[in-house]
């Protein structure tokens, strides 16, 4: 709307003022001007720093590991001895710095593990899975979308139908089923062997079920791009299929891919949390934010923070990624020629809606 003209007017004026500026630096300038998005990007980096600092905190402040139990131990708080887990099996509450940083957020359950240390290590797992799966999913989706959209014909039919079928599956249910069967028996395909506790199992499960949500819109975009004159021109000049797909079409998908990637991290983190929450994702004793909520929900009546804190961490991470993704979309494609709203929307409800939220 022209009512608040300052940022927009500047954005419009930019190309004439600095003629040599490319679209990327323009997009970067537009993004930086979006204060809310920048604030949440900073928040996301703070969360990343927080989880990266896990070993420092564990070694130098809490003096314990994420999976170390302290069931029968006592803690000295202000010269007074207190049980980490009392006789009724209730874990100690948040101590902040009363015990020199040990049990900063209290203990997690009757096992008496340090909640803060688990929160930091659990966040590592959650973010690691979120980012890894987003990378794999996006890469697979781009390749499938390019192949289907470029070659069309039977290749497109096979890929599109497969994606349709994955789309029709009750994602969470089948995901849990796959997650649990794999977690118990591990995975053995030829030389590839994964034990049941491996993080690769939730990663694989998540990737399988989220590929369609990105591949379908990418395929649609490739279909329309490959009709454009610049593609025909490249073909006319004798460019091979690989050259056309990766040299001509892919760069035009860049902004879509970047936005999807950001939003997919958020969605996949929710998916992971959902799987882990139901015991089909990250396996004990390893922690992730999802598994920590499972543990915390049992003590909701007495120690509500044990469920609410990891839940809040997931929310903050997802919220910051969603807002950053939104800001990126506005910055990269201000006129929004592609209807990303609808696409990302479907990703949001189906992947995370169906799967996790």
């Amino acid at each position: 709307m022209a009512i608040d003209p300052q940022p927009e007017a500047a954005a419009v004026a930019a190309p004439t003022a600095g003629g040599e500026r490319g679209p990327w630096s323009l997009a970067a300038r537009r993004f930086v001007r979006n204060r809310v998005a920048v604030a949440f990007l900073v928040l996301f980096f703070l969360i990343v720093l927080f989880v990266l600092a896990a070993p420092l905190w564990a070694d130098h402040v809490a003096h314990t590991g994420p999976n170390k139990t302290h069931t029968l131990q006592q803690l000295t708080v202000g010269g007074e001895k207190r049980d980490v887990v009392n006789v009724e099996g209730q874990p100690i509450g948040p101590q902040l710095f009363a015990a020199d940083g040990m049990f900063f957020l209290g203990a997690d359950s009757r096992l008496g593990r340090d909640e803060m240390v688990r929160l930091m290590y659990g966040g590592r797992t959650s973010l690691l899975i979120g980012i890894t799966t987003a990378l794999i999913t996006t890469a697979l989706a781009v390749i499938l979308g390019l192949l289907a959209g470029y070659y069309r014909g039977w290749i497109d039919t096979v890929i599109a139908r497969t994606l349709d079928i994955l789309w029709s599956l009750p994602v969470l249910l089948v995901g849990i089923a796959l997650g649990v069967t794999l977690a118990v028996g591990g995975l053995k395909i030829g030389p590839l062997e994964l034990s049941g506790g491996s993080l690769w199992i939730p990663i694989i499960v998540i990737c399988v079920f989220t590929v369609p949500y990105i591949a379908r819109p990418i395929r649609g975009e490739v279909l329309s791009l490959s009709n454009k004159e610049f593609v025909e021109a490249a073909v006319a000049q004798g460019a091979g299929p690989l050259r056309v797909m990766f040299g001509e079409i892919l760069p035009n998908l860049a902004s879509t891919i970047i936005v999807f990637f950001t939003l997919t991290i958020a969605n996949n983190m929710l998916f992971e949390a959902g799987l882990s929450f139901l015991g089909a994702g990250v396996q004990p004793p390893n922690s992730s934010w999802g598994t920590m909520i499972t543990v915390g929900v049992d003590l909701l009546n007495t120690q509500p923070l044990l469920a609410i804190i990891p839940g809040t961490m997931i929310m903050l991470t997802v919220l910051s990624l969603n807002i950053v993704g939104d800001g990126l979309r506005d910055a990269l494609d201000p006129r929004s020629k592609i209807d990303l709203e609808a696409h990302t929307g479907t990703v949001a409800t189906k992947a995370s809606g169906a799967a996790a939220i």
Partner: protein
Amino acid sequence: MSPAPLLSVKGLRVGFSTEGGLLQAVDDVSFEVRPGEVVAIVGESGSGKSVTAQTIMGLTRSKNARIEGTAEFEGMDLIEASDAELRRLRGDRVAMVFQDPMTSFNPVYRLGAQIGEAIRAHRDGVSKSEARARAVELFEAVGIPNAEGRVDDYPHEFSGGMRQRAMIAMALALEPDLLIADEPTTALDVTIQAQILELLRELNRKRNLATILITHDLGVVAEIADRVLVMYAGRVVEQGTLDQIFFDPQHPYTWGLLGSLTRLDKPRPVRLPQISGAPPSLLALPEGCSFRPRCPHEFGPCIDLPPLQARLRDEPGHCDRCWLSPEAKKEKRQVAGQIGLEAPTP
């Protein structure tokens, strides 16, 4: 004497505040339309002709629009009128036909229902079946075959020409006094264009319907208009009767428009004359006459904006916005028997 004007527009100015500053889309436009008269507003895209028409209908009102001037319709100023007053008028006394019949109907409702909706919005107590019966009559009146069967079709089931007929039928639903047709034939095939123009002319004669025709096509104007306004960059640069504009054009821009018209009654030019350059951005209008940068006859005084006034003694209704004297114009516009923009070759 000619009858009292139905619509009288005076000093109409429409500006929009945009990211790049104030965009003056229409600047000081005045004209009158009498019952049974067809007034054509001609110009390139961006000349302000559509904005003029839509402003009369109150369709350009928004937070960002600055609208000045008056547009009196039977004693009511349409510019000052409240939204509710305008709404009562729209579709009832003043109706509009739009350029693209493909997108101007709502795709999810039957055509008959969309016409009925217009009727029922203005006439209390008209039942749906009465409205539908009226729609059938209107379809017949605009020459849609098998009206009874087609009135319940959806817009996509109609061809472009038929859809424009349906659009006209809808505009006529409440027997308006004034019809505003915004590029009614532009989106249609040439053969269909002629049919639609024929229809408009017939309606104009039979129903004494005053019509404002917005177009960029002088061929269309020649078919049907009584009087013509030529607009350029938001301003009227010349106005007069059809004959005055076609046979004694006064403004170089009008010469250019006429020159780019292919004519069968004159020898074929070596090359179709054209107006060089592009219309100016409304955000950065040149000083003085806005046609100056594209005009081959530019001279000293053009740095000041010429007023719109009658410059020919015996043609008081024929006004133009050009500093050249009528004699100079007569000399300069003759190029090898053609009305052209190019300077005479020595």
